[in-house]
């Protein structure tokens, strides 16, 4: 969609609409810049339509500001939501390449997340094993866990195995969480880098 914007009012309205999720002080500051731009343009004899055409799509401009905000938020507090938001805005600007990068990215993040949850839950299993160590063996006759029977009733084995498993699983969860954070930070850097490089092109793409 590349509709022709004929007036300053129209331009600013679309821009304001795109900025509505930002705080009011920021909105005011941004709109002021464009007001000033129109005023000066008019004083130099340009028409509002000409000025609007030269500026480009107000929706795309609004997305650029939204992206800056999203990236700042994601940097200040890297969380799943803030990163997802930043990626979403980046996609609307056209530079988080959908098919290839996004698919791979979701796979990677999903895998990490799944591993963290899986190992996290398995800590409970380790706890169960440790508890079993204290239950007399005759009560467990009906609850075999499928390994050599003498081992599963040996309380020392149960306790040690459970304990070691908890330590290992916790360690893995910590490690994977760290990896998760690294992926988040790398994502932010990737988005910032791409944004600086293609800042220009988003103005020339026809975006819905």
């Amino acid at each position, binding site marked *: 969609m590349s509709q022709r914007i004929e007036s300053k009012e129209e331009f600013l309205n679309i821009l304001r609409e795109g900025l509505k999720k930002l705080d009011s002080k920021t909105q005011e500051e941004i709109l002021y810049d464009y007001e000033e731009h129109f005023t*000066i343009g008019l004083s130099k004899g340009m028409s509002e339509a000409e000025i609007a055409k030269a500026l480009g799509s107000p929706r795309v*401009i609004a997305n650029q500001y939204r992206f800056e905000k999203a990236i700042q938020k994601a940097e200040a507090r890297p969380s799943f939501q803030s990163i997802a938001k930043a990626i979403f805005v980046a996609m609307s600007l056209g530079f988080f390449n959908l098919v290839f990068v996004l698919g791979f990215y979701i796979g990677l993040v999903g895998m990490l997340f799944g591993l963290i949850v899986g190992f996290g839950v398995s800590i409970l299993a380790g706890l169960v094993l440790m508890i079993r160590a204290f239950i007399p063996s005759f009560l467990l006759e009906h609850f075999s866990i499928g390994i050599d029977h003498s081992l599963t009733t040996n309380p020392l084995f149960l306790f040690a195995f459970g304990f070691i498993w908890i330590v290992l699983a916790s360690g893995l969860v910590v490690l994977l969480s760290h990896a998760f954070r690294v992926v988040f930070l790398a994502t932010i850097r990737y988005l910032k880098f791409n944004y600086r490089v293609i800042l220009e092109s988003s*103005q020339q793409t026809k975006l819905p």
Partner: protein
Amino acid sequence: MITQLKKGSLELCVLALIDHQDSYGFEIVETISKYVEVSEGSIYPLLRRLTQEGYTESYFHQSTEGPARKYYFLTNEGKEYYREMYHQWMVFNQEVQKFFMTYHKENVTNESTNRK
């Protein structure tokens, strides 16, 4: 392809202009578009980001021709940043030129026989 090349250098041009002389938004847009075809709307987000990163600051100045204008100037960090970026740009340019001197052929009509 040319748009890809322009994108990274827009910031550099804006910094150069402000370094040369305190300027207001419209003037920056007008001057740069004399040399390079540019989507003018990207200039203001760029200026805002430069200000937030501490590279530029602005002040209002009354003009005889109309309303007060917001002038931008480079901070010390901004000047340092610009010098660094300019240097990187020049080095990159020279490297690419050198590369072309060896590998660019004028009037290539056939498919390259160097395909593997």
